């Protein structure tokens, strides 16, 4: 099963909202994946086991895994595009 890490500063607020949206998106598209939240500071140690990172923070580091910016899930602007990026990455 694919694994998606959803990261923000504290793994409590914005990643919670984004992870909720992503879980809904994957369910609608019949994609089985393990969606986990974490802090950006934990990405380095957790990225190895992940297939995709979605983050609401500014992340410039290369974790060897695709990184998608998920601010759309918070601002509401550009959600369709972000959804598509995630689906394309997990197919």
């Amino acid at each position, binding site marked *: 099963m694919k694994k998606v890490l959803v990261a923000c*500063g*504290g793994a*409590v607020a914005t990643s919670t909202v984004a992870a*909720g949206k992503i879980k809904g998106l994957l369910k609608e598209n019949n994609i089985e994946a393990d969606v986990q939240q974490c802090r950006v500071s934990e990405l380095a140690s957790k990225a190895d086991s992940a297939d995709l990172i979605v983050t609401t923070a500014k992340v410039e580091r290369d974790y060897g895994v695709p990184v998608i910016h998920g*601010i759309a899930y918070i*601002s509401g*602007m550009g959600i369709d595009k972000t959804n598509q990026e995630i689906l394309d990455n997990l197919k």
Partner: protein
Amino acid sequence: MKNSFLDKELIIVNSNASSKHEVLESLGSLMIEKGYANENYIDGLKTREKEFATGLSVKPVGVAIPHTDSSYVKEDKIAIMTLDEPVAFEEMGGSNSVDVQLVILFALTDGDDHLKALQNIIQVIQDESFVREMVTVADKEKAYELFESKLTQLEEEA
């Protein structure tokens, strides 16, 4: 669920704060005074905002959602501020500056029980007409009523 997150005493309308630090100090002080956050809460807010900015470039005015580690927080609350003049926040996930006129501060303890409430509050920010109305309210009673009725509406729709 009742909107226990909201508290009339945690609302400041038409603030003349002129920097994001002033915004965080005013709202943070309220949280501390009311006993909802620890003494060092404001430092926590500033540090987090610097590292992980929370400005959102939404319509019709920018909104910021400052928050910090749950370890600073004693009770799940949101504090609200509307500003007379926009204040610059850095954009979440980006490097642009956003002119913010509505600030919604999240004070969240750990746990999953705030997920639904959090989703609804984020939903509120994405509602252009709501944001427009919020920044023009004249007093905190009105701001409270407006916010509460919007949240109640979202809960009923869910």
